């Protein structure tokens, strides 16, 4: 039997679990960069080539990385940058400017940020002097003076690129693309966006200066690859301090992924969304249940996590309503059935409710109009019903037309789970004619 070189250290279980949590949390929560990005090798190569041409050979370029939310666009860019900066020359020469559409909501702010990040002369420490026009002129001067041989290449990364297209006149985009087309200081403009139709947002003059180069990250995972991805995300790396524990853990993860019920759950998740982020959310719920008393992930954990992810929020809120509010919702459901979705107001709902009360012998729910009004307003605050138009100035509250924002199936499901629901209320809900 060959003697494998295991680390001799045997840490106590508590310590091991802490280490596991730390490693996996870094992977799932703060999106630590993997050593090699999986499934996007072609895109990685393409982008790396492009940026190398700018950084090493001084060629100006522009590219857009397009993909749905959670597809891994920012992660791809960061991996490419990490690989690019391994080259000493590049590390010395390349200047980087990182902008985000959510933070730099205006061209003025964006320009100040660029000036700050490039440490231009009109920025002292943190403060940037001059007006917008002066700053823009200064920046363009600085960029125009260079040429491929004598000036350092600059990399502009524009996150949430579609938000930059909403700025006034798209000044920043126009200037950046303009510089990238003309023979000036070599710059690379990389835009990251989740909108597939981003080119429609650009003005004609901006679009013509853009190189129309797009890298798409549309995931083409199959289900076995998805399963494999789940397994690798949960497995511990080789350099874990306690080798025996890591082996046991990885083996348990392997058996977990081969379990039939787990496969069904993961199939359901795969069918609703393939991206990495929703997978990370599911695995995070599973990971949170790991502790010293349960040192491994069991199929029950995954089932519970899946139940939490797929829980219907509105049905949960319906569960907490009082009986009166529930009766009002059932009355609204009947009104929707009879009048085919026409909006209703409180008077109509009260009328419908009174018709139900007339049929019952006891008058337990015979509340006054103001009490019913308060229940109705509570439903409005929870946004389970919404006014049809927002002009509530001239209409009395009880005549304001509203719409119900819950589906019929959600109401019926909530009634099944409602604690101690009176049977006549249930029967009223299920009867066809209200």
């Amino acid at each position: 039997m060959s003697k494998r070189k295991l680390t001799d250290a045997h840490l106590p279980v508590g310590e091991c679990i802490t280490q596991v949590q730390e490693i996996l949390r870094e992977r799932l929560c703060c999106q630590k960069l993997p050593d090699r990005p999986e499934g996007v090798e072609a895109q990685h190569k393409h982008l790396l080539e492009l940026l190398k041409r700018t950084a090493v050979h001084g060629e100006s370029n522009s590219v857009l990385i397009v993909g749905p939310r959670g597809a891994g666009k920012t992660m791809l860019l960061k991996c490419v940058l990490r690989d690019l900066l391994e080259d000493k020359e590049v590390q010395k020469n390349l200047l980087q400017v990182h902008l985000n559409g959510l933070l730099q909501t205006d061209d003025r702010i964006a320009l100040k940020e660029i000036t700050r990040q490039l440490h231009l002369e009109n920025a002292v420490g943190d403060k940037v002097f001059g007006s917008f026009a002066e700053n823009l002129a200064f920046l363009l001067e600085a960029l125009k003076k260079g040429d491929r041989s004598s000036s350092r290449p600059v990399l502009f990364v524009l996150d949430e690129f579609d938000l930059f297209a909403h700025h006034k006149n798209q000044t920043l985009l126009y200037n950046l693309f303009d510089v990238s087309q003309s023979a000036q200081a070599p710059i690379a403009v990389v835009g990251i966006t989740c909108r597939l139709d981003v080119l429609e947002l650009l003005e004609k003059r901006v679009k013509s200066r853009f190189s129309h180069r797009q890298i798409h990250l549309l995931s083409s995972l199959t289900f076995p690859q998805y399963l494999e991805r789940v397994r690798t995300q949960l497995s511990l790396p080789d350099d874990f301090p306690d080798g025996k524990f890591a082996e046991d853990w990885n083996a348990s993860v392997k058996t977990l992924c081969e379990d039939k019920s787990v496969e069904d759950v993961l199939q359901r998740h795969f069918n609703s969304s393939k991206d990495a982020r929703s997978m990370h959310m599911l695995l995070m719920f599973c990971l949170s249940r790991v502790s010293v008393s349960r040192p491994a992930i069991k199929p029950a954990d995954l089932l519970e996590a899946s139940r939490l992810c797929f829980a219907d929020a509105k049905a949960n809120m319906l569960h907490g309503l009082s009986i009166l509010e529930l009766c009002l919702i059932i009355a609204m459901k009947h009104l929707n059935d009879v009048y085919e979705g026409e909006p209703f107001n409180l008077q109509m709902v009260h009328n419908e409710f009174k018709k139900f009360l007339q049929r019952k012998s006891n008058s337990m729910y015979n509340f006054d109009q103001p009490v019913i009004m308060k229940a109705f307003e509570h439903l409005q605050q929870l946004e389970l019903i919404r006014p049809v138009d927002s002009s509530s100035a001239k209409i009395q509250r009880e005549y304001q037309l509203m719409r119900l924002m819950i589906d019929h199936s959600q109401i019926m499901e909530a009634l099944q789970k409602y604690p101690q629901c009176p049977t006549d209320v249930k029967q009223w809900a299920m009867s066809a004619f209200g």
Partner: protein
Amino acid sequence: MAALLQHAGYEEERLLRVAQQMPCREVQAGMLLSLMGQPQQYSYPSIFIYGHRASGKSHVMHVLLKELELPHATVSCVECVSVALLFEQVLLSFFGCDAASLLPRSPSLSDFVRIYRQQCSQSPAKQTRYIVMEKAELLRDTDANLLPALLRLQELVEDNVTIILLSEIVWDKFRPNTGCFEPLLLHFPDYSKGELQQILSQDRHPSYTAEFYSSYINILLGVFYSVCRDLRELRHLAALNFSKFCEPLAEGKVKETDTHKLWRNIEPHLKKAMQTVYLREVSSLQWEQMQQMEEKESGALRGLSAHTHVELPYYSKFLLIAAYLASYNPARTDKRFFLKVDRFNFTPKNLLNHLLGPKPFPLDRLLAIFYSVVDNRVAPTASIFSQISSLVTLQLLTQVSHDDQLDAPKYKCAVSMDFICAISRTVNFDIVKYLYDFL
């Protein structure tokens, strides 16, 4: 008894203290703790906690963060009318007032992130920092970029920070149209009747036994549970009415165990409370005074809606009746009601006009009905027209047309059926005979 809350990174006695302060919420607190993990580990960038009012979301968060002494910043979005207040509060809680003073005059999100990054490069987070935002549904009404940026704050500032959003509204109504970083969703379920009983019984008065107070809470829940399950409201009602409940005991008429007599004494009182204090028709102070005043003077209790019953002059009452008829009768049926000769008969309809609300009518129609309804001859003087304006000021009529239209103003009648019936009775006018819906 095994501790209900257990976690590796925190001391046992602290967790025991935490568990004592939040009855019936141990499961949720445990879930939250396991998501938070040990203080030095990373946690998910954003967590969204939703649940009904008074279901313990803020309470659990505060108790956890305070007892376990984790660095946190609590912001209520109601107070932050401008984003500058939000940024200041966060920087103040994490880095002190020097950092907060670095913010420029009207700071943008970009300034906030920049200053945060500078500060955290000087003092990086050794434990996860938490930003708790209450009433998070108000964030939807601020700038469109604030909510998506806050959800990704961990990535933007490259620090170990987690945002926790607390709200009553479900997450589906928050999502921006191009999507955002989805937070972890956590639900705080409502309290069941038994749990409400358990929590409310903790407020007991020291001079009475626990069973006595529990029986009182039982009766209270029996009256109010089908209408209201909000813990805060129920606690308030319990506190207000307890003295009345103990009255027969203090007077020596009943013993503590005579639940039936106690119930008979308190139940009509609680029913009255539902119509007044629960609806905030009377303030709690007035209610307490009324309880001390005994039954002979309790008729003087006037709710807020009683103040709308002003005493109107004679012709104003008829104007109001005419306005009501004009609002709730369709115009084509005026002939049938207000001509001397009755030649038409109609089939009765359901109360459709009353369900839809009042309809607008022009001034001429109002005056036409007014003249046919008032029994003696009335000259169209300015005093009649000025009474119409005063009815509008009293908000008994609403003016629907624009202020510029002087020749054909339109109005709507804004009073309820009970009010107009009361008024018509004072002038001996049978209004039901003239309403189309009641034929």
